[in-house]
């Protein structure tokens, strides 16, 4: 190969990025894959190839339940967040005439406090002597505090849906903002009412924003660890909590790695299904 000056410059320019990706992404992933085929022997890791960890992950109903539960919780969070975010994004895109920037800025205000603090705040809101219970009690709607608010998977869904709301609002807003307003006028001129205009013009054109929002929310929430640990109780525990146990108390890194990689595969499959379904929806609406 003849190395011209141009190739040299190119290689030099891409070297930092390549190095970064190799060191911080490729190497850790390779190590995790390698670990997942090894076995833990009390305090030592035996470096012999085996499928045993994957066999355990897929044959044991415990891990299957945790992975499915994580996918289900993340799907519910995604659905709820997008559903609640859409009207807000719609309002800012179509009804706010002046100072849109200020509105968007307001949407990001929850991010000014730490994620952990927001989870703790939800604990205070949902606790047995918390905000919701004391309000309902003082209004005389209930006689005894509800103990079904906290420490279950619903509490996890509520907390995550609140924490991730801006991540849904912003991409949906961008896709709504991009819609050519003359298309809506044309729809009106051709005799469509507001509902059908929305369903046939606005919604299909905002699908890319919805797809973006779904992916941004779904992928990180499947692997969320802090929220289920704090508000999930035992039936809100997710796969990340089990992975943490394997790397900590259980001291079984190989099984932890196999669990982590299995979760990644399941998330990829689930995400593809979500995107595929939305694309189908887009086509059927057009």
């Amino acid at each position, binding site marked *: 190969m003849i190395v011209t000056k141009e190739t040299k410059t190119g290689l030099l320019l891409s070297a930092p990025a390549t190095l970064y990706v190799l060191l911080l992404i490729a190497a850790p992933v390779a190590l995790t894959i390698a670990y997942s085929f090894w076995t833990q022997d*009390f*305090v030592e890791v035996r470096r012999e190839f085996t499928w045993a960890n994957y066999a355990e992950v897929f044959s044991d*109903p*415990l891990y299957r*339940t*945790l992975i499915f539960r994580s996918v289900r919780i993340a799907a519910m969070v995604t659905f709820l967040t997008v559903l609640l975010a859409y009207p807000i994004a719609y309002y800012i895109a179509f009804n706010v005439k002046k100072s849109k920037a200020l509105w968007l800025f307001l949407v990001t205000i929850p991010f000014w406090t730490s994620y952990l603090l927001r989870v703790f705040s939800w604990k205070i809101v949902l*606790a*047995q*002597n918390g905000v919701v219970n004391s309000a309902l009690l003082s209004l005389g709607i209930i006689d005894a505090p509800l*103990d079904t608010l906290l*420490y279950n998977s619903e509490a996890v869904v509520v907390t995550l849906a609140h924490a991730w709301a801006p991540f849904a609002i912003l991409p949906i807003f961008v896709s709504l903002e991009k819609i050519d307003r003359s298309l809506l006028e044309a729809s009106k001129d051709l005799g469509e009412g507001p509902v059908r205009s929305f369903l046939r013009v606005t919604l299909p054109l905002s699908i890319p924003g919805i797809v973006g929002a779904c992916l941004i929310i779904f992928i990180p929430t499947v692997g969320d660890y802090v929220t289920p*640990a704090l508000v999930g*109780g*035992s*039936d809100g*525990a997710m796969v990340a909590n*089990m992975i943490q*146990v394997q*790397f*900590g*108390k*259980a*001291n079984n890194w190989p099984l932890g790695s196999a669990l982590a990689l299995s979760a990644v595969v399941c998330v990829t499959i689930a995400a593809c299904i979500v995107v595929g379904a939305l694309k189908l929806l887009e086509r059927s609406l057009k």
Partner: protein
Amino acid sequence: MKVTSIALGATFASLLSGTAMAEQITVFDWSGYDDPGFFGAYVEKYGEAPNFSFFADDHEGFNKLRSGFKADLAHPCTSVIGKMRATDMLSPIDVSRLEAWGDLLPTLANLPFVSADGQVWMLPFDWGNTGLVYRTDLVTGDINLQTLADPAMAGKISLPDAVEDAYALAALAVGVSDWSQMTDEKFQEASDFLRAVHTNVRFYWSDQGQLDAAIKSGEIHAAWAWNATELAMIFDEIPAKMIRDPEVGVASWACGYVHLNNGEGGDEEVYDFLNALSSAESGKYLIESWGYAHANAKSYEIADQDAVAAYGYSDPEGFMASSLFGFNPSQEIAAKMLKEFERIKAGF
């Protein structure tokens, strides 16, 4: 010129290493244990406390040490000593250099994970109980360990999110008072008991503050908890107490200092620090200011007698003899418990 730059380099190197004294020791500890009240004699002699680095739980600390973290002393509890010895991290402790070794409570000094193979591997420092803590105003009638599995207590129970503590409870509930009696059969019984309690559990506590708040608010009526929780209730005047009756069942825990063999500090400093920690004065401070029990038997004589009585430390030896100590089932059963506990928590 060259000489100056070498001298400068050396100065910088010693500045970077943090101290002028190369012999300074590093102690790897639970947060809060850098309280100078515990090692007053050491500070008096050296004019400053050693370097401290902290961990949040035994297993995290063990993993950090395994991956190469260097320290002279660490403060683990009994559950990771086996792993530490299996990985050759520890140096035996020369008890002839410890002034107070003979004053330690004999039960602690003879614990299997403290003295083994003719050597001493850990200097016991603090110990206490894990037992049934309940709200005396909310739980009426007789209470014992089986009460935790009573359907009437649904949603009012909290268990620790630590396999050692949970299985200590289960062992006591099925009549095991010594870890050597923990057979496969008893392990099954114990697991069935935990499974029955699981249906009543509101949450598994991992942070004592969370548990204390829930007991104070009346959300949790009974919990398997450390004596520190009972102390928190005493301080806040909440009607709650820990059952220490050996007929009902109570467990004890102990933590202490181990000498790591990859430390870079001086040997003399290590023993001066251990001597300061094991002195009766250190124990007096631990009992009076922290409400924890100390390993030195003489500290109970010089501490405020009202505090000793209020915290239940009047007869430490007699007390320990009748409780289930530490977590010491066979390695094989311990591994099974770890797996089983995760399944139970997930509802399997």
